[in-house]
């Protein structure tokens, strides 16, 4: 008995889906009309201001249908539009030229028909389906055959919407190119900033120390014959300068590419970080140490993520325990750092204005570094903890 109840319930849910689909059809009717009407008006200049708004509303409606379809099929329907920004002319041009607008219009016109037709079909089917299955199942004890047809109708509707609303491969490529252009510009900017930082560090640090050192050696040479005591003092100062220059250089080198990363790879370097963090850190390197190593830039980004988050955990979390996990998959490296502290780190990450010095800006730098490699950072830190930072980095192994 339960089986037939399930079938009826399923058919009922399908009917509801078709009903809301018909509702969307009505809105399509409205929106397709509005868009076409404003398009005509645009030709006479009067409607130009309204056209981008009309297209945006059509996009919202298409978005609603995408979500509805995704909810029914359990499979997300991606969207890709050109952004409508800039002056009015630019917005109108983008709205008219976007292939997404054309696809939305085609979908709207089609949904207008199939949304209604499929709902009618379902409504007509219900009574005979109940009769047939009542006989078929009740009398003959066979599986219901007619009621599932209603579910098939809803499936058909979802499939049609999905096919029509999926962005064309060209649009998806365009969006990907857009994204890559932005991240590449970020990467170039980040690299430029990094080079300037290194140049400044060397200029103000090691280079200045070496100039001072050379000066002291020159003075010591002059004083050597007449005033050996002064010469000796100058030599001592020169040695101090040389040591300062070396310390500076070491510092700069660590900032460019930590030597231990070269020596021990990511897993070894992360273990060293954990040991030196002052926290009780569990390190799970997964399979990260087997097989070929990730590109140096990816390893360095992963290293700085772990270093930054462990420093933050030690400073702000109030907990003395943390967990670092590395995972590698096909073309991917995942890093997750978790502490059992008091949480609330998201604000400092997003806004960079809370009192925790370094926490915010460090987090921002980390996001930039990861984004430059086309990776993602996710921070979950509810008040009361725990704080979990998850980073995904694409890379060829």
């Amino acid at each position, binding site marked *: 008995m339960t089986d037939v109840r399930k079938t009826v319930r399923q058919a009922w849910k399908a009917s509801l889906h078709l009903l809301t689909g018909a509702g969307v059809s009505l809105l399509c009717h409205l929106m397709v009309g509005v868009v076409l009407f404003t398009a005509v008006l645009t030709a006479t200049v009067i409607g130009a201001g309204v056209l981008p708004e009309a297209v945006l509303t059509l996009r919202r409606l298409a978005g609603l249908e995408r979500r509805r379809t995704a909810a029914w099929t359990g499979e997300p329907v991606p969207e890709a539009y050109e952004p409508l920004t800039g002056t009015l002319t630019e917005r109108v041009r983008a709205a008219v030229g976007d292939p997404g607008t054309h696809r939305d219009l085609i979908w709207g016109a089609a949904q207008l028909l199939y949304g209604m037709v499929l709902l009618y079909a379902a409504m007509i089917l219900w009574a005979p389906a109940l009769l047939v299955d009542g006989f078929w199942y009740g009398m003959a004890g066979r599986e219901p055959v007619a009621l599932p047809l209603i579910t098939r109708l809803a499936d058909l509707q979802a499939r049609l919407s999905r096919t029509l609303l999926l962005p064309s491969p060209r649009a998806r490529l365009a969006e990907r190119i857009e994204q890559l252009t932005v991240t590449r510009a970020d990467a170039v900017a980040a690299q430029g900033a990094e080079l300037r930082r290194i140049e400044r560090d060397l200029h103000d640090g090691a280079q200045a120390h070496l100039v001072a050192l050379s000066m002291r050696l020159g003075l010591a040479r002059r004083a050597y014959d007449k005033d050996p005591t002064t010469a000796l003092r100058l030599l001592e100062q020169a*040695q101090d300068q*040389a*040591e300062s220059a*070396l*310390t500076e250089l*070491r510092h700069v*080198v*660590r900032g460019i590419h930590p*030597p*231990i990363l*070269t*020596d*021990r790879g990511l897993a*070894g370097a992360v*273990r*060293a970080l954990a*040991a*030196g963090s*002052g926290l009780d850190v569990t390190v799970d390197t997964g399979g990260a140490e087997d097989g070929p190593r990730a590109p140096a830039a990816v390893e360095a980004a992963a290293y700085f993520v772990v270093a930054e988050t462990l420093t933050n955990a030690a400073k702000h979390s109030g907990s003395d325990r943390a967990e670092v996990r590395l995972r590698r998959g096909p073309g991917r490296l995942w890093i997750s750092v978790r502490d059992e502290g008091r949480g609330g780190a998201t604000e400092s990450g997003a806004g960079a204005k809370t009192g925790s010095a370094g926490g915010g800006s460090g987090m921002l730098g980390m996001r930039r570094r990861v984004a430059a490699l086309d990776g993602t950072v996710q921070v979950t830190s509810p008040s009361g903890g725990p704080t979990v930072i998850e980073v995904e980095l694409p890379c060829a192994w």
Partner: protein
Amino acid sequence: MRVVMAEDNALLREGLILLMTSAGHEVAGVAATGPEVLPLLLEHRPDIAILDVRMPPGFRDEGLRAALEARKELPELPVLVLSQYVEETYAAELLAGGARGVGYLLKDRIGRVDEFLDALERVAAGGTALDPEVVTELMARRRDDPLDALTPREREVLELMAQGLDNATIATSLVITERSVHKHIGNVFAKLGLPPSDSGHRRVLAVLAYLNA
């Protein structure tokens, strides 16, 4: 002393050889790559080995690996490891088999010739020489009450002990008498709750174990 050294950088190699010979030590052999080190040590059986961490063929930590192998194959051989940068992890690996005859110093320290030669002789004699930077890192990490309870002078004494210096050298570098060094050390051990330990590598291990806990 007879010294075997491993250093791939020609400038530094010549400098070290000059330094060793002018201090009256004999350089028995020089290795320029990681894999050459152990056979050379087995061949010459020197009084001490001076090894650079980063060497060919991989330019990673070949020298350190050679040092760890040497300590396994020739447990009595004192080893002094030099590097452009220091890592706590490497210090821990070197000290894993005990602190007897182990040195781990930044190359910068070679510039202070007298101190460097002291450290060399200390390691050769079975003592320990740990770079101040490692000790500073360890000290900075422990932020607990017993360390806070130390007076500035006692902290200095603790740092120098952790570097492997003996009482006389501590006294000289702090310009105080050996008697007061002895007194400070007593206070440090009492405040940290450590059993009093004799001078030398055992004391270094006790102090490092405390800092690492």
